[in-house]
Each structure stands twice: as structure tokens, then as C-alpha cells.
């Protein structure tokens, strides 16, 4: 057997390689084959049962668009979407896991949100469906659809926690969230007032 010029690894390093390889082989299929285990043991802690978070600052992801979830996971991992909480948690997820989690959560039944201020929601309703002509805010329904369900290109908003929606709009506005395609959401959020954000988030909660 001729190994050419390759240096001999030595028994200890060969052993290390072998165990690492074995570990990977053993761990990967287990994770990839059962994203529901990851979802119900890891994601569960913040995103709640089946992705229906009950904590307003953590988003509901049940029924979210598959493509969107997978994109966010990839971008947390790559740093394109900055998030101190998510980054350490999702380390070790493979692309397959991320795709699997996207599919799994998208198939979960979304629990409805709750409007807390009906009057405010009515203000938000107008913004959601009509936009604000004077400031150039497009209607949300243009992309996110009239029922807030989104589609392959745009995330689902319906039933989301008010606090989370407002936090994301603010993050787009101040640029701390910068993983929107072509800066479109940053352009929209830049034109929104704080009051408009709260109103539209209130309406979205009831969709």
C-alpha cells in the first residue's frame, strides 16, 4: 500500500477521526430523520407546542411558510439575520434539518391570535389593506396577501403576537434586521410611524 507523501496520522489521530466520523454518521440520520424531535424538545422551549408560542416576544411559527422558516434558520446560522438567542441553539443543524424543520412547522396548525384593542385594530386594518398613500406605505396585503397567510415569497403574518410584529418592524426600521429581500421591508418600515406599527400589529393578531 502506497500512501505517497501523505504523512502518517498515527494511531491516536486515526482513532479521533474514526470516532468523529462515527459520531457524525450516528447523529445525522437521527436528526435528519426526525425533525419533530428537535421541534418538540429544542424549539418547544420558546416557540411553544407545535410552534404556537405563548410568549409575545417569541414568534408563533406554526403554519408559517415553509420556505420562510428554512430561510430564517439558514440566515441565523450564517449571521445574515443577527439573533443572539437563536444562533447558539441552531448550531449543528444541517441544511436538511433546516429544510425539515421548515416543512414540519409549516404543517402545524396555527393557533389564532387575540386582538386586545379593537379600535386600534380597525386603524391597522386600513393600513394593512390600503397602505398610507401620503407617506408611500404600500398595503401589507400586496405581498402578505389579504388574509395575511403569505406565500412562497412572503411570510405568513396572520395571528402573530403584537409584540413580536412590532419588534420586527422596528428592527427593519433601524436596520438591526437586514435579511429582507432587496431591502423591501426596510423601505416599508422606514415609512411607518410607531403608532402605525402598533395598529397594524394589532390587526395582524386577529387575522
Amino acid at each position, binding site marked *: 500500500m502506497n500512501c505517497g507523501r501523505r504523512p502518517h496520522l498515527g494511531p491516536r489521530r486515526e482513532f479521533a477521526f474514526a470516532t468523529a466520523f462515527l459520531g457524525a454518521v450516528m447523529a445525522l440520520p437521527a436528526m435528519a430523520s426526525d425533525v419533530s424531535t428537535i421541534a418538540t424538545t429544542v424549539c418547544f422551549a420558546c416557540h411553544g407546542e407545535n410552534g404556537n408560542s405563548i410568549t409575545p416576544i417569541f414568534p408563533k411559527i406554526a403554519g408559517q411558510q415553509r420556505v420562510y422558516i428554512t430561510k430564517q434558520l439558514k440566515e441565523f446560522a450564517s449571521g445574515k439575520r443577527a439573533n443572539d438567542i437563536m444562533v447558539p441553539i441552531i448550531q449543528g443543524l444541517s441544511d436538511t434539518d433546516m429544510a425539515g424543520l421548515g416543512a414540519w412547522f409549516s404543517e402545524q396548525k396555527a393557533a389564532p391570535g387575540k386582538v386586545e384593542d379593537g379600535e386600534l385594530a380597525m386603524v391597522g386594518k386600513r393600513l394593512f389593506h390600503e397602505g398610507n398613500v401620503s407617506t408611500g406605505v404600500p398595503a401589507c396585503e400586496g405581498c402578505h396577501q389579504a388574509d395575511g397567510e403569505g406565500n412562497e*415569497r412572503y411570510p405568513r403574518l396572520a395571528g402573530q403576537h403584537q409584540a413580536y410584529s412590532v419588534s420586527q418592524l422596528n428592527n427593519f426600521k433601524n436596520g438591526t434586521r437586514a435579511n429582507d429581500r*432587496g431591502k423591501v421591508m*426596510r*423601505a416599508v418600515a422606514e415609512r411607518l410611524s410607531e403608532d402605525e406599527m402598533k395598529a397594524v400589529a394589532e390587526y395582524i393578531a386577529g387575522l
Partner: protein
Amino acid sequence: MNRYLLALLALCSSGLVLAATAEVQPHAPGIESADYIWNEMDSEKLLALRAKVNLGNGKVAFEVCQGCHRANALGREDGSYPRLAAQHDTVLIKQMSDIRAGRRDNPKMYPFVNEHVIEAQEIADIAGYLQSLPSPASNGKGPGADLETGKTIYEKRCVSCHEKNGSGSAEKLYPRVNGQHFAYLLRQNIDIRDGVRRNSNPKMVRVIRQYSDEELKAVADYMSRLPPPTVATAPAATKMQKAPAGAR
């Protein structure tokens, strides 16, 4: 040393601020510049004019526009956003390209139509999709106070390009004006007359220059009442194998 450091810091932080905000429209020379050529071709416009169009992709790509231009591209009756349905694909391609290049100023629209949002192929797809949409006679009309003046001016000065029925010309890139909202037509009339719409055709500027606001209002009113087409016209852009001639 400290001053350099401060300047560097300022530069860095301004860069960060810029990164956080929307895309800003560039500024390209237009009608105000001496060597302006109307409808001068650039590679992007040519690419879009010659592209093989996919209407399904156009519908999807148009979603980012419909928050303002509304579903089915009917625009708003108050003219804040124009109707795009049934407009010639060639005209739509020209306008999108001009806004992308900064030849037509529209800082409000730019963040949604720039190259990071809409690919060159999608310009063609969107234009084809929009042209295929029906344009019902529900567009915003003017007050109807002086339609005689409007008709007289229109038939004397506008029909040679925009046609008697307001259908314009896809091949010559003259926009369809029938079915368009009165308030939008009026705003464009005034902006073209006053040089604000910088990608205007100089031939039109020469014609429109002599008219008062009141006269332009009458013409816009008359145009808004021209009946829109009942059947969609065939796409013209894909048939354009060579560049349409720019106006002299």
C-alpha cells in the same frame, strides 16, 4: 490624528446608517441636459424588450408592486398611483428602466423596483402580465366642466401620437392614456410641461409647453373619459428585434 480617526468613525457610522435604510434612487441626466436623447437604449431596456415573457412569473413578481398599484394593477381613482393594467408592455418596460436608472425621478417607488428586488427578466415578465390585464372604465374621471376644450386640444395636438381613442402606440412607446385616472394624467401633463418628468419626449414637451393648468386639466379630463380597450392587445415587446428609434 484624532481628527482623522473621528472622520473615519463618522464615515463608518454613516455607512452603517445607510445600510439600514432603503435603496436610494440614482440620478441620471434627463431632458434638462443638452445631449438628452429620448428613449436612448441601455442594455437592461434592450434585454427586457427582447426577452421571452413568462406571464405567470410576471404575476408573482408584480406582488411587490400591488401594495400601491393594487390588485389587478388598477391603481387608485385619486390618481396617487396610476393604473398599469392594459398599458403597453414596451411603455412599462421603458418607465421601469427609466426609474431604475434615475432618468425618471420617483424616490418613493425606487426601493421596490430596483435591481435588488426586480430582475431584468422580471421587468419584461411584469410588463407582459400587466398588458394582459383588463382595464375597466372604472378609472377616476375629471370634473367634466370643460370637456369641449379638452376635446379640441386633444384632437388637434395629441391624437397624432396617442391616437383618437387614446390607445397610444406599443411600437413607438407612446403610452395608452384611455382608462387612466384623471388625477394621474393631470399630474403627468403638468410634470411633462414643467420639465419635472425628466424622461419626457421632447416632441411632447414642445407641444404641451403652451398650455395652462386649466387647459391641461380639460385635456386630462377628456382623456380619462376615452373608453379603455375591451380586449387585451397582443404583447409587442417580444416582437421588437431591433431597438425602436429614439425621437429626433
